[in-house]
């Protein structure tokens, strides 16, 4: 139970000003960078107009981290970077060095601690992911475990820069898609495949029925009375298991160990480089949920990465490669089955049908 505040409370101060945290070299050359080079996988060198050079060493983190580990990073920052570090938009950690000679010792220390250096240039970076069974109520699967399993298998793709282009994998544990699953080169998405089971007894106590009804994208939920109390009914054929009803109403649980699983999506991107940003498209509609190492998921992702690495041209992102060779070729090369589920049948579905006689044989 919350209690009234005693001392004058501090609120609405916002985040600390970033300038407090900038390394001196960054402050000095802020906005005055001239160009950069990648010295080695995970090692960047940014050169300023002033001639100053800033060295960045990027290492992977598991994102889900104990304070013990963060303190180790802080120690490294003290040791090599005057106490400065940053994280990246993909949950990697970056050490910012003034002295080139510190690069190798830092790399050694990181190796010892078990944090691989890499993720720059034409490599696979860290997987953007979500909470999974670690913290979320919606999760159709775990996130961290799959990320770990996939990255174990693709470790060399992180530490080497031998891919055709940058490769971004994302993982989300339900259709809410916290993160960037909808626009990733490869995306792993936890899915439910059976409709929610309505808990009529608790529903009126804990849910706003109109909100619940409005929540269903397909209108599968209709008002109904259950034992005299207002509740809802579900037209099961209209349910595509998005879980939005559960988000607004706890009495609509849809977790189901037997039928929850994973789907794999490919070809999305967000950069505007060369081609416009794109959504990820369905590659594999369903794979079983097999903790602790999800071998089917790992295999499917590795397969895609291998086929891509082998077939794409330099600077071609996954989606650009597939668009060039065509989706039929993608399915041929990966051996994934093309099913009715691949053909869109939601709102704008018709726009995905092939409306030309341009076909490869």
């Amino acid at each position, binding site marked *: *139970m*919350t*209690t*009234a*505040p005693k001392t004058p409370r501090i609120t609405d101060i916002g985040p600390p000003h970033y300038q407090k945290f900038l390394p001196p070299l960054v402050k000095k050359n802020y906005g005055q960078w001239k160009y950069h080079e990648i010295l080695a996988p995970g090692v960047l060198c940014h050169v300023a107009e002033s001639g100053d050079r800033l060295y960045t060493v990027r290492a992977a983190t598991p994102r889900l981290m104990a304070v013990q580990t963060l303190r180790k990073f802080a120690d490294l920052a003290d040791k090599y970077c005057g106490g400065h570090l940053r994280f990246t938009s993909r949950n990697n950690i970056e050490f910012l060095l003034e002295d080139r000679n510190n690069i190798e010792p830092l790399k050694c220390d990181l190796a010892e601690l078990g944090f691989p250096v890499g993720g720059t240039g034409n490599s696979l970076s860290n997987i953007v992911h979500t909470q999974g069974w670690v913290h979320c109520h919606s999760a159709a699967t775990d996130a961290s475990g799959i990320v770990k399993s996939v990255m174990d298998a693709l470790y060399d793709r992180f530490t080497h820069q031998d891919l055709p282009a940058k490769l971004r994998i994302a993982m989300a544990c339900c259709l809410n898609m916290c993160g960037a699953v909808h626009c990733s080169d490869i995306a792993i998405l936890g899915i439910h495949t059976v409709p929610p089971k309505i808990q009529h007894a608790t529903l*009126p*106590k*804990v*849910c*706003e*029925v*109109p*909100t619940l009804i409005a929540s269903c994208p397909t209108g599968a939920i209709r008002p109904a009375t259950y034992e005299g109390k*207002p509740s809802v009914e579900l037209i099961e054929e209209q349910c595509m298991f998005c879980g939005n009803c559960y*988000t*607004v*109403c706890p009495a609509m649980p849809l977790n189901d160990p037997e039928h929850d699983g994973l789907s794999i999506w490919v070809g999305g991107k967000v950069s505007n480089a060369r081609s416009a940003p794109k959504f990820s498209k369905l590659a594999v509609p369903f794979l079983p949920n097999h903790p602790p190492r999800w071998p089917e998921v790992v295999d499917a992702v590795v397969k895609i990465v291998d086929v891509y690495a082998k077939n794409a041209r330099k600077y071609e992102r996954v989606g650009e490669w597939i668009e060039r060779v065509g989706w039929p070729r993608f399915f041929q090369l990966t051996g994934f089955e093309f099913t009715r589920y691949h053909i869109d049948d939601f709102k704008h579905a018709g726009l995905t049908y092939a409306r030309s006689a341009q076909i490869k044989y």
Partner: protein
Amino acid sequence: MPVFECEGRMYEVDEDGFLQEPERWSQDVAKDFAQTEAIADLTDGHWKVINYIRNYYLQFGIAPMVRKLCKETGYKLNEIYQLFPSGPAKGACKLAGLPKPTGCV
């Protein structure tokens, strides 16, 4: 199901302290729940907000959107936070006996 006890009166609540028996609500219930919300006394201002939310809920089956709440009660949002330190959703709706809002308050 957790229970909230106030001077001997027992209420079935969820983990967050929201009343689970909407039909039991009365002004006294609101008063009891006020204690959990760092509210000393329920003033006219509190009642204006509680009643508006309660009536809206009875009529439409949902909690009003915050914007609407402000417009109709005449309180600015920060004033509502002054009345209900946990805010309209966690505070005011709880006192009004609504289920935990997942929408917009």
